[in-house]
């Protein structure tokens, strides 16, 4: 599904200088797998998610990202969306004046258009949006507002999962989708994710807490620090981390922070 090979990426800072954040990152996720990435603040987890989804301001200096044979780094953000890459943002942005329904319709049809498919008719769209939003406990009131405007922290995260459910991508990156969620909302979100697990779709779940991984069972857990993966294990690694903290893992590695 996705193969990230020796990825190096820098941010362009205002004064024109570059700061390397991703420093030789390797990862392979097979179809249907769920991988979790845990790591201390500032490790570069969100930066990785931006580089994968094609945000401006990041420069890939070496390495490659391959999604089902496609060179992802050669594509702009909308093309990556059409390939099936989806990022659930750590901090979803508010878009005043752009109504939720208008936005969701535009997104669905934009992806369909890139696939050479017909636009979805009004009735089909209504059914799709209504059905998915109900499942995720998103109220009609939220749907009548502008994108993320006036949404609580938890509502914003649920809205990310709603978009994911509607767009049906094949590679989903969830950046701290659990933070800011109460226990019930976390269950709703995890159910939403689990419903999308179909043996084909792959997930990269970035989180600080083992708790989410109780609900979304990962196949593989990675620890990321200072721009690269420093340890990989099974679901047990997250439990071990919860118990011992990062100190042990960081201290034992050469070139650690």
């Amino acid at each position: 599904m996705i193969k990230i090979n020796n990825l190096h990426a820098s941010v362009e800072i205002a004064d024109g200088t570059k700061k390397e954040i991703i420093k030789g990152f390797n990862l392979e996720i097979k179809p249907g797998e769920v991988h979790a990435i845990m790591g201390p603040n500032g490790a570069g987890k969100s930066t990785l998610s931006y580089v994968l989804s094609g945000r401006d301001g990041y420069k890939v200096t070496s390495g490659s990202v391959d999604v089902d044979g496609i060179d992802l780094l050669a594509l702009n953000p909308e093309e990556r969306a059409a390939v099936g890459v989806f990022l659930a943002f750590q901090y979803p942005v508010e878009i005043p004046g752009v109504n939720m329904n208008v936005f969701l319709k535009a997104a669905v049809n934009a992806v369909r258009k890139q696939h050479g498919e017909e636009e979805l008719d009004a009735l089909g769209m209504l059914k799709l949006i209504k059905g998915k939003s109900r499942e995720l406990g998103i109220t009609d009131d939220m749907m009548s507002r502008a994108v993320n405007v006036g949404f609580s922290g938890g509502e914003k995260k649920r809205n990310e999962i709603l978009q994911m459910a509607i767009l049906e991508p094949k590679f989903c990156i969830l950046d701290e989708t659990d933070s800011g969620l109460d226990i019930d909302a976390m269950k709703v979100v995890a159910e939403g994710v689990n419903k999308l697990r179909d043996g084909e779709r792959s997930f990269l779940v970035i989180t600080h807490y083992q708790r989410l991984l109780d609900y979304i069972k990962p196949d593989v857990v990675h620890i990321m620090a200072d721009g690269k993966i420093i340890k990989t294990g099974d679901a047990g690694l997250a439990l071990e981390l919860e118990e011992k903290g990062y100190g042990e893992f960081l201290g034992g590695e050469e070139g650690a922070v």
Partner: protein
Amino acid sequence: MSLRVLDRNALPTPKQEQWKYTNLQKALGEDLLKVRPQAPEQILVHKLAGEVSSEPDMVVWKGENGIHHQPRLKILLEDKAQATVIEHHQGAGSYWKNMGTEILLGAGAQLNYIRIQNESIDAVHTDMVHIDMNRDARLNFFSLNLGGKLMRHDVHTVINGSGAQCQLNGVNLLRGSQHCDTTILMEHVAPNSVSRQFYRSILDDSAHGVFQGKVHVHKEAKKTDGYQLANTILLSQGARMNTKPELEIYADDVKCSHGTTTGALDEEPLFYLRSRGLSEAQARLLLIQAFVDEVIDKINDETQSGQIKDLAEKWLKTQLEQK
């Protein structure tokens, strides 16, 4: 209540003007200074006390090549009268339209005034608006500036009655080398009145916009609530905007503030939309439309606001397709 008329022989010189961005003498140029003056055309919209008109009054001012037009519009609403006035400016060729507008609102009168300025691209449009508001009067004024090579829109409002509420809203869509000045003087003379100024501009190519708005709260105007907001999105490096918000307050216990922003479209929402599959052009259109629609939605008539949104959308599509 004489109209303040800008006579071409009495044009202000840069020295006399507090604000020097538009040099009218120079902007008009030799050709336009020689245009044939036309006798003032006058239109009066007059509603008697308590009269509520169900249909809007339509006013259309056409511009003709080589003419110096001097239209005069007077809107007089007596106590508790209600009306909607829709004004269109259009034309062809090179001309100078020097407009004078006077609005008088009696106690409790309510006016919706929509002004759509879509002059010929070679026209100069100057418009002096004088507004006088009495007790509990309501004004909802929306202005769209689209056409013309040089526009000056001066609005002088005097709130003489307590409880009056004045809304001045506007959208400026400018491209090429268009220049548009909006100058507002909002005078709160009586206590307990509310004023809102909400202007948004989209500037492309080497267009130049100016917004200078002053809220002047007189000594007796206690409990004045005044707010002023001017936001601009620049679509090109060559476009320029100057904003000068001013508050001049002589009364106690008032609530007045202002805000202005000028810059390129925010990168974050743009990326958010693109990451969901929208093309860059589509994402830009959606965001900029939302930005201007927020002002257009202040018009409390959906047919009218719908038509203005269509005009704005057409303009934006043309600009964004070039990018």
